[in-house]
């Protein structure tokens, strides 16, 4: 009985995921083929003559009815054939596989940093609300939400690269300068794998500004949410009971209150992980970081629609999968849910 329920629940979640993925496929199809007045004209580029446009139209199957196009499109995607990019003249899949790790380096690093710091700051803020540091947090957390990420990036460039000249202005690790192998595409990881300390230094220096920018843009949300949920938990009666038993205050905060407050916080962190991809596009443009963000920026600019489509798809699927994984975490955090499952 219980097992049956669990399977059914899993099937439900899975079919929901499929539905969302299908919806994003359809949406990107509509975006690229239905909304634009003449996709072939866009795809062929501004300099193309009428014959070239015609050629492109034939080659991409744009002369067929929309419904036929739709099914060919779905079929291609199922075969992982995402078409070619016009700007790089390469299969989009290859491009994505090449650029994704470069972006993930930024995304992972900043995610871990702001998740840990954000929760930590939130805990300190809720625990010592009258502290000077908490006052600083309550002020700066509004600023943190209110600052556009691309502007923060520019400011950091202005201060740390242009004025102080401590850090490189833009760009990621140049592999050819250090003679290291491209194992993963992530600069720090590759220089560690190649055991090259010079390269590692350069990789870390290159990563500092973009990661700081992303962290600054996201940390306020995590801090504010942790603080407000923890604040509610700390007012609960069970906290008083634990105090009455003589449990140390830090133990109550961490093991009782924070643990119970973690559920919404984890959900938010999952959502933010998806938003990070939106943020990285802006940050990569500011720092000329050669990842998926810069790639999609160029695709947006030239209306190179195969990459646009593929990126929307990749980001959406990642977002959905991450949030589903987060949902799987709930029962671990809340034994009551474990029971109900």
């Amino acid at each position, binding site marked *: 009985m219980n097992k049956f329920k669990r399977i059914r629940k899993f099937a439900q979640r899975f079919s929901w995921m499929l539905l*969302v993925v299908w919806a994003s496929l359809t949406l990107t199809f509509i975006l690229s083929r239905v909304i634009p007045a003449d996709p072939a004209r866009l795809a062929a580029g501004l300099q193309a003559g009428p014959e070239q446009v015609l050629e492109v139209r034939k080659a991409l199957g744009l002369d067929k009815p929309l419904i036929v196009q739709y099914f060919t499109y779905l079929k291609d995607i199922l075969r992982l054939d995402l078409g070619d990019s016009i700007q790089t003249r390469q299969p989009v899949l290859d491009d994505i596989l090449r650029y994704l790790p470069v972006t993930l380096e930024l995304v992972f690093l900043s995610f871990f940093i702001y998740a840990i710091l954000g929760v930590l700051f939130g805990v300190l803020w809720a625990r010592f609300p009258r502290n000077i540091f908490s006052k600083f947090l309550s002020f700066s957390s509004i600023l943190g939400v209110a600052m*556009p990420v691309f502007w923060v990036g520019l400011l950091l460039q202005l201060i740390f690269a242009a004025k102080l000249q401590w850090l490189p202005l833009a760009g990621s690790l140049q592999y050819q300068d250090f003679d290291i192998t491209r194992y993963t595409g992530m600069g720090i990881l590759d220089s560690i794998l190649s055991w090259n300390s010079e390269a590692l230094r350069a990789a870390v220096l290159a990563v500092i500004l973009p990661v700081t920018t992303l962290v600054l843009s996201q940390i306020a949300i995590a801090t504010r949410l942790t603080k407000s949920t923890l604040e509610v938990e700390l007012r609960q009666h069970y906290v008083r009971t634990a105090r009455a038993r003589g449990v140390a205050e830090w133990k109550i905060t961490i093991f009782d209150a924070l643990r119970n407050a973690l559920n919404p916080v984890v959900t938010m962190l999952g959502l933010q992980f998806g938003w990070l991809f939106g943020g990285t596009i802006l940050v990569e443009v*500011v720092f000329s970081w050669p990842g998926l963000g810069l790639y*999609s920026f160029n695709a*947006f600019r030239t209306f190179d629609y195969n990459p646009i489509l593929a990126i929307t798809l990749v980001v959406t699927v990642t*977002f959905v999968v991450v949030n589903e994984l987060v949902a799987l975490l709930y029962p671990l955090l809340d034994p009551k849910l474990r029971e109900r499952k």
Partner: protein
Amino acid sequence: MIRLRAKISSSRGQSTNISHKVGTWSFSAFVILLLTVIFFPGLFAPYDPLELDVINRLQAPSKAHLFGTDEGGRDIFSRVLYGTKDSVGASMVIVLMASGTGTILGAIAGWFGGRIDFYLMRMVDVFLSFPYLVLAMALAASLGRDMRSAILALILVWWPSYARMVRGQVLSIKERLFIRAARTVGASNFQILFWHIIPHTYRTVGVRASMDVGYVLISLTGLSFLGLGAQNPSPEWGLMISNARSYVLASWWYSVFPGIAILLVVSLFIYAADRFSGAER
């Protein structure tokens, strides 16, 4: 001592009330000022925002040019003022449209229930399970790279959260006594919906909308920064910062001032929403 404390605490109670009122008034004043700048930027701006003056290009801030000049010698202070319309005005329009659409659809879903509710809410769920910024970018790119498509894209991305919020509220209002009373008197579905139910959601929607003007402004300037929104020579703030990128090493003022304008407007809207929702509690 105790008496003194009593006094302090009672005066504190009053002062929060007063400071709350002051907050509301100063926020209203700020919005009115913004609207004035949006509709009559010429009242405040010393220069034409579009007129080129190449001899004075990239001048540092001075008495003549408070915020300096850009690569075309245009006065950045005047451009920031004129840009309010394209940035803040557009964000307000987006929020107005999104919250309006969301409220009506959410109210309909909550009120009628059944199939309408099911399909509308599944659609909302699907929309909300996309990362909003990437979706907005893709939409804006495919609609064509101009201000109008950026605005449309952001409306499309923003309405679902309002629909979900309002639907929840309608569900709880629906069963209250005065709605039943209106029904017994013979009011029609639409009468009840528009005269009795939707007015009850104004407050929460208002708080949310005030906050969202801030968030939408950040997203809109982001789109413009990527070239997916306003196009040159518009003085839209995100676009100005985008143009300033090429001069970041030599002319700090070019990127800094439009950014401060964004920061100021967004933080005031978010702060106001914070205060209003706090007062409600």
